Structure formats: structure tokens, C-alpha cells
């Protein structure tokens, strides 16, 4: 490896060439080479690796939220604690202190010590640091789950419209056009105000109004056209390509063409879209929760914590600032990852947040 010849052809490359020679099916290993090369390219991208590590750290710390609440904060972050006290500098201090001007109460500020109220308390006397971790769980879960919903619908609709064309294409295109033209936040608001205020009941299926599935479904649906339209266009181009024509001439069935020729090509688009859509979904969840129509109490997300801290903005700004920073770091990391994946998988694609 260290020798000059080794630098020109690495062991892995050599093995891949051997594979290609000996493999029974050439296309499969050629495709593998593409994925290997792309993965190697992402791994060489230092910013992307930092982003992956940051996301992993966020995810693990959020998963460990109950541990933090039990062992460090010693408090249930979902119960209000208006008459509790906390030990700061050897003295018992009330969690909610009377404000200096005599009006109302101010929650205790950050202690900056690894223990109870490290980042202070919110308006209910709850531990902000512990809530931040619990909120991260919900934000990441909603972001990921809505991305899965969005991409699944987008692939189904995009492939159906692009591959079969004709009347199916017409109907799906019209649906996508209508959803596309509908202002995103107004659509989300309309759906939320109906669903979140009364829940939904379809036959035996009852979904309560505070169920997390509602914001997940709403966020998952509103961005479907953003992904389905490019996939439809890509499938239409693939459908007319020479290699699909060759498969048709060989007598391959539709299913086989879809599985062997179309899906592998669409997969790279999907992989590039995954982090970008998750970033967008996390911001959307936060925005809807900030407006009071996303995640509903008792669940908390980064967006609802920002909303809780709104009236404390000038006295205890950290309550709103901290979850916002968590959102920004997560979304920046996801966008960096998205950029790296796009560069690695499809240098010509012009995918933006739009």
C-alpha cells in the first residue's frame, strides 16, 4: 500500500477488478463498485464525517435522556416543580424566585454544573437540560419518521407515474400539482387545526389528538411533491433509456425492469434526498410546534420548548436559545451530509433545499 505502485492501485481496487472478472454477473458487481466508490468518497469528506459524528452524539445523548433525568437531574422533567428548591453553592434556592420588580416569578437560571438545573428551569420549574434531551428524541423521531413516509409515498407515486405513464401519470401529476401549489404552512395549519383539535376516527381506528403520529403524518405528506416530481422525471428518462429498451427487447417483465434497472437508479436520488428532507422536516416540526399545532403536550420537542420559553425570552433566554441551537446544529449536520452524498452519488444533480 505504501509503495508507489500501491498508491496507484490500492488493494481494494485490485480486489474489485478481480471480483469483476470472476463474478458470475457483471452488472451486479459493477453496481457494487459504484456504491463502494461513493461510500469511499463520502468517507474522505472531512466535513461529512464531522457531521456524522455530531449526529451520532446527538442521537445517543437523546436516547439516554431517561438516564440523565434519573442520575444527573434527579427530577421528572415532565412534572411542574413550582415550590421545589435546588442546591446552588451550598444554599437551598427556590426553583421559582420572585422577580426583582416584585411581579411574578422567574425560574432559576443555569447552574452550569453537571447536576440538577444545569441549564436552569422553564416557566413550570422543569429542568431545561433534561427536557432538551427528551425533546431531541421527539424531534429526531418525528423528523426521521416523516422522512420515511414522505420518501415512500414519493417513490410509489413517482415510479407509478413515470413508469406507467398514460392516465396514471395524468392523475398523479394533477394531485402533485395541487399539493405543490398549496402553501406548505397553510396546508399544515389546516390539517393540524382539524386533526389536533379533535383527533380522528376512521372505523375502528381511533387516533387521539395528542398522538405523535399526527404531526408525523402531516409533515410526511406536505413535502411529497418535492420528492415525487424529480423522481417521476428521472423514471421517465430511465424508461426511455437504451438499457431499459434492451431489457424490454430481452423480454424482461415490468417487475424485473423495475427491480433491476429502475430502482437501483432511483435509490441514489433517494439517498441524497434522505438527509435533506430530514433537515427540512425537523425545521417544519419545530415551526409547527412553535405555532402550537405540532407536537402536543405531554410530549415535548425542541419546537415546543422554544415556545415554552417565549415569555421568558428576556429573563431566561437560554430556555428558547438552547433548543434552537440544537436544531441548527442538527440541521447543518444533515445538510452537510446531504451535500456530501450528492457530490459522491451524482455530481451533476442540482438538488437544493427547494
Amino acid at each position: 500500500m505504501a509503495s508507489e505502485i500501491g498508491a496507484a492501485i490500492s488493494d481494494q481496487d485490485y480486489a474489485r477488478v478481480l471480483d469483476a472478472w470472476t463474478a458470475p454477473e457483471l452488472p451486479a458487481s459493477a453496481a457494487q463498485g459504484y456504491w463502494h466508490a461513493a461510500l469511499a468518497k463520502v468517507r474522505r469528506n472531512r466535513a461529512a464525517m464531522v457531521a456524522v459524528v455530531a449526529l451520532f452524539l446527538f442521537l445517543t445523548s437523546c436516547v439516554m435522556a431517561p438516564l440523565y433525568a434519573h442520575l444527573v437531574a434527579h427530577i421528572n422533567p415532565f412534572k411542574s416543580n413550582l415550590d421545589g428548591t435546588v442546591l446552588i453553592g451550598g444554599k437551598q434556592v427556590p426553583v421559582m424566585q420572585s422577580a426583582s420588580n416584585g411581579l411574578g416569578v422567574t425560574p432559576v437560571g443555569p447552574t452550569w454544573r453537571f447536576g440538577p438545573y444545569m441549564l436552569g428551569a422553564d416557566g413550570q420549574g422543569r429542568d431545561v437540560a433534561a427536557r432538551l434531551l427528551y425533546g431531541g428524541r421527539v424531534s429526531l423521531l418525528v423528523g426521521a419518521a416523516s422522512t420515511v413516509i414522505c420518501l415512500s409515498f414519493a417513490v410509489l407515486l413517482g415510479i407509478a407515474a413515470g413508469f406507467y405513464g398514460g392516465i396514471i401519470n395524468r392523475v398523479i401529476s394533477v394531485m402533485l400539482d395541487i399539493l405543490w401549489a398549496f402553501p406548505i404552512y397553510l396546508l399544515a395549519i389546516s390539517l393540524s387545526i382539524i386533526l389536533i383539535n379533535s383527533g380522528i376516527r376512521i372505523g375502528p381506528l381511533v387516533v387521539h389528538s395528542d398522538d405523535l403520529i399526527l404531526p408525523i403524518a402531516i409533515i410526511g405528506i406536505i413535502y411529497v411533491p418535492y420528492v415525487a416530481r424529480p423522481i417521476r422525471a428521472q423514471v421517465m428518462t430511465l424508461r426511455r433509456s437504451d438499457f431499459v429498451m434492451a431489457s424490454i427487447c430481452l423480454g424482461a417483465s415490468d417487475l424485473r425492469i423495475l427491480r433491476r434497472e429502475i430502482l437501483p437508479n432511483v435509490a441514489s436520488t433517494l439517498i441524497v434526498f434522505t438527509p435533506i428532507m430530514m433537515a427540512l422536516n425537523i425545521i417544519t416540526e419545530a415551526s409547527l410546534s412553535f405555532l402550537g399545532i405540532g407536537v402536543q403536550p405531554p410530549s415535548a420537542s425542541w419546537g415546543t420548548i422554544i415556545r415554552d420559553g417565549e415569555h421568558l425570552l428576556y429573563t431566561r433566554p437560554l430556555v428558547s436559545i438552547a433548543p434552537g441551537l440544537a436544531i441548527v446544529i442538527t440541521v447543518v449536520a444533515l445538510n452537510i451530509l446531504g451535500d456530501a452524498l450528492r457530490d459522491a452519488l451524482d455530481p451533476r444533480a442540482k438538488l437544493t433545499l427547494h
Partner: protein
Amino acid sequence: MSLGFTIVKRLAHMVFVMFGISVLVFLIFFATPGADPAARIAGRNASPQTVALIRKEFGLDKPLPVQYLRMMDRLVIRRDLTSYVNLGEKVVPTIFRAAPVTLSLVFGAAVIWIVFSILVGVLAAAFKDRTLDRLLMILSLIGISIPVFWLGEVVNLVSQGLLHNTWLFSWVPPLGYVPLHRDPALWFKSLVLPWFTLALAFIGIYGRVLRANIVEAMQEDYIRLARAKGLPEAQVLIRHALRCSMIAIFTLFGLDFGALVGGGALLTEVVFGLPGVGYLTYQALTNLDLPMIMATVTYASFFVVSANAMVDILYSVFDPRVRND
């Protein structure tokens, strides 16, 4: 295809999409399983008489198509839909009164984001793969990743709280809106920070798109020709590469401008207390004032759809290549 035919076809499509959206709005508000639509429209603590009245007014005992026509009649043709939360308030005129606030906000932000994104895009492309380019691109990425309502809160915290008594932000008036015709200077001052807050993410997006387009354009033959003529590099970049790359930006701009006026500026309006259409929607949301939401949603999406159609038509006027679609 002739230009006239393209325009007619696009307008027909526009009307069709508007119809689709109005049906979707109707289905969301009147046909979602769950609570009784009349009870929803009446809002919290409504008397049974009010609910009964609404049921009769909207024809909720009639078949769905009739209900749809009734809703559209009251929303668009007679425009006499009234709120049940703020009794007697006619919702459509209220929306038209709030529109200038939203337009002031979005116009100002648009000017800022166009100017700054051209600056970012051109500088990044000129210094491609060097430190300035990397710096601008990472800043753009961060700009895109900041939730606008949180940015607004941070701006408020700094300008109204932490640094309000210093020379930096002592000029910032309290949150709220001052009409242009009453006090132009105060109008400007009260909108500067909301403008920049709203513009930031768009500066990031447009800067990145513009950089990519300029870098791509720099490979084209006409750029080689411009260089061969002996034009200075700055002139090649600005007169030739930038000019061609602006086409994509203007299409994007038309869509975003429409989307912002049609509800996208809602979060900025809420955070800065600007009583525009978005703020109206938010208030209606907290009061469960469904007629108001139905009206803002319908009118805003009609605005977005017509803005999109305008962009497409202008595009086909200026660029004959797209007419062949």
C-alpha cells in the same frame, strides 16, 4: 406552439389547480372524519343555537357538492363569510386590510435577498475552491439551517433586550407595524430587522444556486469567446456568466415570492408582531376561528397559483425554448 396557445393552456391549468385546491380545502374543513364541522366552525363554547344556525347556513344537511358550492359562494362570490369568534367580523375584507403589511415585509426582504445573494454567488464563484468560497458556502448552509422563528427570537433578544440601550440598537422601535403613509421613517425602522431575518435563508439558498449556475456557465463556449475577445475577467463574470445564470434565479424568485405572500411569512410576522395575513391566520388558529382560516388558506393559495402561472407565462415570453413542452 404559439405563444398565445401556451398562455391559454397555462391559464386553463391555473384555473384547474385553483379548483383542486378549493376542493381540498373543502374536504379538510367539512369532510374530515371526527368532529361535526358545524361545531368546529362555531369554535369553543358555542351555544347549540349557533351550531344549528351554522348547519343551516352552510347547508351541512345537504349533499357534499352543494356544501362545496355554498362555501365557495360565501368565500369568493358574495364574500360575506363571517367569523363566529369575533362575532360579525367579515373575514374577507379583514384579509385584504392585512395584505399591505405582508406585502411590505416580503417586498423589503426580497430586495435584500436578491442583492445579497448576487453578492454571495458572484464572490463565491469568482473565488471558487478558495477560502472565501468555502466560507461563504458554509455560511449559506448555516443560514438555510436556522429556523426563521428562532432567528427572529434571537434578533428580538439582542435588539429589544440585551443591546437595546447601546448605540447599536437604540433606534429599533418596539415590535409592531407602522403604516407607510403614516410615518415612512418609522415604517422603515420597524421593518429592517424583520426584512433581514426573513431574507437570511433565501440569501443562503439563492447564493448557493447562483454559484453553481455561474460555475457551470463558466464552462460554456460563449465565455471562452468573451475571454478570447480579451474582456477583463470581472466583465466576463458579471456581464456574461451572471447574466445567463440569473434566469434560473428569477424563476425561483417568482415561486418563493408567491409562497411568502401566500403564508410563508407567517412565522416572521408572528415573531415580530406584524399584523399581516400570516399573523391573522395565527390568531385564527389560537382562537379556533375556522372561517378565517378557510378564507386565508383559500385566498393565499389562489395568490400562489396565479403567481406561479405568471412566472411560467413570463418565462415562455422571454425564453421561446420552453414553449415546446
